[in-house]
């Protein structure tokens, strides 16, 4: 231990899943805006997107494959890559989304705690599990502005911003994201997503399909 605790910064960690986690929870109370399974699937999508943006994995029509075995710096990203590399079968993105969704919220919350963005608080009721709350509400709100970068027609969207906004809308955060955007934000988002590489586009569509299927089967 160095004695220096990590501190939350407005600029964020630069990781998609961290931003989506903060976007999907209240910036003060940490209360989720979505059903648990939808958050899990959305975070699973961002974990895969992080590896895609870092050129570590690719999504082909027949499944997810490792593009490079160079270990990512982040421990969680490394564990996901290890799983993809070690899996015997070539699995479709949908299977990876559903598999990673089971533990993604806990994994990303722990990563955010290590980065100084979240802290564990006692549950409001004794029988409830411990909950995560943002350390700084401004830092927890900031991902919304980063996602908005993809909704502004006057500025070209970055791949990171478009992927964040696309995955956020895919898991059901559209109603949180779009009211803050300029007029025509939905069209702008669609256009920004269309400009993404095909693998990321496919991942966003698969994420939305998985969340929609969960809504339709009442298993969200």
């Amino acid at each position: 231990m160095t004695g220096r605790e990590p501190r939350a910064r407005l600029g964020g960690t630069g990781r998609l899943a961290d931003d989506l986690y903060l976007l999907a929870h209240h910036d003060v109370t940490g209360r989720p805006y979505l059903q648990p399974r939808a958050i899990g699937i959305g975070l699973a999508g961002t974990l895969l997107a992080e590896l895609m943006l870092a050129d570590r994995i690719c999504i082909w029509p027949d499944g997810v494959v490792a593009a490079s075995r160079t270990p990512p710096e982040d421990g969680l990203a490394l564990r996901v890559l290890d799983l993809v590399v070690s899996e015997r079968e070539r699995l479709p993105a949908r299977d990876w989304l559903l598999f990673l969704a089971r533990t993604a919220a806990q994994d990303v919350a722990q990563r955010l705690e290590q980065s100084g963005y979240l802290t564990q608080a006692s549950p409001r009721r004794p029988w409830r599990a411990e909950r995560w709350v943002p350390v700084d509400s401004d830092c927890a709100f900031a991902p919304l502005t980063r996602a908005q970068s993809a909704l502004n027609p006057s500025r070209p969207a970055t791949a990171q911003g478009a992927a964040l906004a696309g995955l956020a809308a895919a898991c059901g955060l559209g109603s949180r994201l779009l009211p803050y955007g300029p007029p025509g934000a939905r069209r702008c988002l669609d256009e920004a997503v269309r400009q993404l590489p095909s693998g990321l586009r496919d991942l966003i569509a698969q994420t939305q399909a998985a969340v929609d299927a969960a809504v339709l089967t009442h298993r969200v």
Partner: protein
Amino acid sequence: MSRQQARTRPGSVSRALARDRLGVPAVLFFVLAGVAPLTVAAGVIPTAYQTTGLTGIPAAFLVIAVILAIFATGYVAMTRHITNSGAFYAFVSRGIGRTAGVSAALVALQSYSFLQVGLYGALGPAAASEAAAHLGIHEPWWAWALVAWAVITVLGLLRVDITGWVLGVLLTAEITVVVAETVSGLAHPAGGHLSFATLSPASLTSAGFGTFGVLAVVAVLGFVGFEQAPVLAEEAKNPRRTIPVATYFALGMIAIVYAGASWAMAVHAGTGHVVATAAQQGPGLLFGLGGSGALSQAAQLLFMTSLFAAALAFHNVVWRYMFALGRENVLPAALGRTGGNNIPKAASLVQSATGLAVIVVYAIGGWPPMADLFFWLGTSGGFGIILLLALTSVAVIAFFARDPRGENAWRRLIAPALAAVLLAGIAVLAVLHYGTLLGVSAGDPAAWALPASYAVVAVIGLGWGLILRTRRPRVYAALGLGAHAVTGQLTPAAGEAA
């Protein structure tokens, strides 16, 4: 995800996902929760005895169970090969064609909407009579219907998993009460003689061959909900086994419970008197089977919760259709959007608005809720489901005609052909005797307007399908895929329907 998980053996992802999937009991629970047995046993059966004046209802339940089992053979076989198999229009789109699929989608929406809204016509009077008897509150039926409507509207906008749990608890209690009433009724037959007359096939055509069409619609109305198992096909542990087993088990269970309950009512009141007794007692025909004690009180309370559960279940079915069609851009895209907590608020609110409008119109018109709202719209909803079952059977034949996909001739051709002929025949008989079904004269406007409304909706659907085909080919291409429309891809097993 722990380090141990990271070092997991190859193939473990598939195994982990399989552990999360649903087995037969969970799928069966989901199906039966929407069936709401007491709604049919206390609501539909006595009203059917009274309105139609026919006594062959117990036999009709058994015969329709066999016909639906034949239908289910091809239905569950095709479920294994398509996505979005929880919706009839997906079968029609992939089998007959996407234009017909739009038509089927709108007919399904109308059918389930009729079934849902009709339930307010039984909920209101049931709650009004309970409140008057036990609480001394004397309010009209529509006031209680509006209370139920408000609660369903709110629940529809809350977390959907809560409602599923509530439905399950109610189901268990309902089946217990119906079975107890049935046993008690059979133990006390009128005149001390246990008559099997209403179970005889001869009772199906007692007032001419057309009688069977009328009885069949009533029986199918009781079974509506059995077709919901494929909704969970993608979540099932073993779709080849889980969905068929749950479907057949549900059919068998519903047939025994309903045939038993309706037989017990006829036995207890006497076959010759059951129609008159039903007219006097209404739902009391069931509640009186076990005397007037605690069982009867429990049954009357559960009747209300059952109606409520059924209204909620059909509310969920309607928004599910609207949400899927909104996602596919067949209906306005706003219906396919979710708000906080992933609830499709727009779709849910549209169905609530429909319910409100119908309750208000019936209240202003002063029309009898039990006969003209509950039974008319309920049976018309059941009639719409028969049309969809017949169309789906044709779709199954067409789908497998292009590629048998390893299914044997019984599943892909013989059973669906038999089902299509039988169900189409029932639909024709029902149209010809719709007046008897509703308990009105043949020339009454309701006797032709209600079945004709399906023809109008079907034609609108065909027209809209053709417009989508020419003006929005991308939407048209993904039609029938439901949640998967967004991926714009057909699964490897997907059909090639035009």
